[in-house]
């Protein structure tokens, strides 16, 4: 087969076939186009203010490494005037996070950005190693996920930063859309498609500039730019990536690569239908999103309970939580929604499309207040992290006796 030439410059050999439009591009044109598209997303959704201090949630993995690299490039090229900081969470998992943190430390040097690491041990008094020692591997992702969501915000607050960007990509968003569709949770589906979460009431805003970037292109960008990233699965959920929604997404992509962005767009459209507002922030489509903001509803970092966990495991987690009285009140929304589904009330099924903010379901997550225990923002009296900690601390007390 004669080598194809780049569709853009028509001189270099094409090395990339773009999943979104099958365009064949050479390495240099691909890198430029990838960066331009992220720039377009940033500008059209007015993601940043001039001179804003922004923390990049950095795990050392491909997505956040590419995000840091692209933001540095665009910040310099287009004069965003951003002050970029790497913010890493140390969950306290030996043989996993300590290795990936070494990657982040190298990234800090490579990108000339300050690095702040906040640990679960200093925030919560528990490392994930200790959590797993106490509760076992089953369900540990729930703890990690709840802790991480707060940890990023708390880390940002320590730095006096009000905006955290994460490396969530189009595949992640598509996966979350599918998961929420399968659960019938359109309220959450709408939130998950929003590029910005966290509104005026929340102290730290979250956004995902790579929301429209294919995971395939992120990996190719990292490869062709020779970026230094870490890729090993968490030792406590080594096969989490085999989750059914993820597998389905990848199989769809194999058959029809545009499917991923189509699912993202469908999610945005459904969100608009359900909530009467747009979650697409792309100005070229003429919409500006307010984006309903609930900081406890961001899509999960490493997958955790959101998306990559196979159904059986979620059900088992559900059961385990139910058996433990101390944990009764702290079921995360997903678990609650699932158990509701399992009861399978016909009434629920016959409901017409919910026209308001998912009021027919779930706890009162509309009201954002502060956790009575730690003072951190929460839609419940006691935040999820404090509830989990209470259970953990009781267990520790028992073990010590």
């Amino acid at each position, binding site marked *: 087969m004669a080598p194809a030439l780049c569709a853009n410059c028509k001189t270099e050999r094409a090395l990339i076939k773009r999943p979104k439009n099958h365009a064949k591009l050479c390495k240099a044109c691909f890198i430029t186009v990838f960066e331009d598209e992220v720039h377009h997303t940033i500008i059209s959704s007015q993601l940043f203010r001039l001179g804003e201090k922004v923390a990049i949630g950095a795990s050392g993995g491909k997505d956040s490494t590419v995000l840091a690299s692209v933001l540095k490039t665009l910040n310099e090229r287009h004069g965003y005037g951003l002050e970029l900081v790497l913010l890493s969470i140390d969950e306290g998992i030996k043989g996993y996070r300590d290795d990936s943190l070494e990657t982040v430390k190298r990234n800090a040097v490579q990108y000339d950005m300050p690095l702040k690491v906040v640990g679960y041990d200093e925030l919560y008094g528990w490392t994930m190693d200790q959590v797993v020692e106490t509760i076992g591997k089953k369900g540990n992702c729930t703890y990690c996920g709840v802790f991480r969501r707060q940890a990023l915000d708390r880390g940002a607050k320590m730095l006096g930063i009000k905006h955290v960007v994460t490396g969530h990509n189009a*595949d992640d968003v598509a996966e979350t859309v599918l998961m929420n569709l399968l659960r019938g949770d359109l309220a959450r589906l709408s939130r998950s498609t929003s590029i910005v979460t966290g509104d005026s009431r929340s102290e730290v805003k979250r956004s995902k500039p790579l929301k429209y970037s294919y995971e395939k292109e992120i990996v190719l960008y990292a490869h062709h730019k020779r970026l230094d990233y870490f890729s090993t699965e968490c030792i406590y959920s080594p096969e989490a990536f085999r989750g059914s929604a993820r597998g389905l997404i990848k199989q769809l*992509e194999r058959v029809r690569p545009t499917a991923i962005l189509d699912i993202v767009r469908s999610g945005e459209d459904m969100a608009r239908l359900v909530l009467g507002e747009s979650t697409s922030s792309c100005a070229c489509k003429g919409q500006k999103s307010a984006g309903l903001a609930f900081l406890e509803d961001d899509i999960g970092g490493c997958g955790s309970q959101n998306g990559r966990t196979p159904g059986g495991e979620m059900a088992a987690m559900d059961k385990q939580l139910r058996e433990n009285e101390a944990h009764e009140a702290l079921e995360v929304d997903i678990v609650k929604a699932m158990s509701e589904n399992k009861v399978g009330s016909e009434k629920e099924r016959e409901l017409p499309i919910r026209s308001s903010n998912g009021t027919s379901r779930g706890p009162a997550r509309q009201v954002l207040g502060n956790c009575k225990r730690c003072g951190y923002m929460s839609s419940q009296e006691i935040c999820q992290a404090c509830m989990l900690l209470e259970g953990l601390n009781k267990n520790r007390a028992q073990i010590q006796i």
Partner: protein
Amino acid sequence: MADTSETTTIPITVDFSGGLEMLFDSKRRHSISLPATDGSGKPANIAFLIDHLCRNLMKDPRAELFVLDNHIRPGILVLINDADWELEGEEAYEIQPRDNILFVSTLHGG
């Protein structure tokens, strides 16, 4: 390459990254001699290479992390001399001496 098997094998390098290293002795780069033809005498192509790697190079029993239903697992990218294999004919690409084939997983988090 001085040995006489040169006529019947093709020297290539195979790279694994994005977490796939762990299935192949935790080593990123492998220099291998690939039989020039498959069992039925057809020139070695990518499909044959994948099968060869599973039989001879993989140190991990979890082959399903690399292949599903006899094809490369969706979510694993294949680059032939740095080009997306979709540009090169995918499994049907006939392997040439000194080719570099990279398998990179997009499936692993960080």
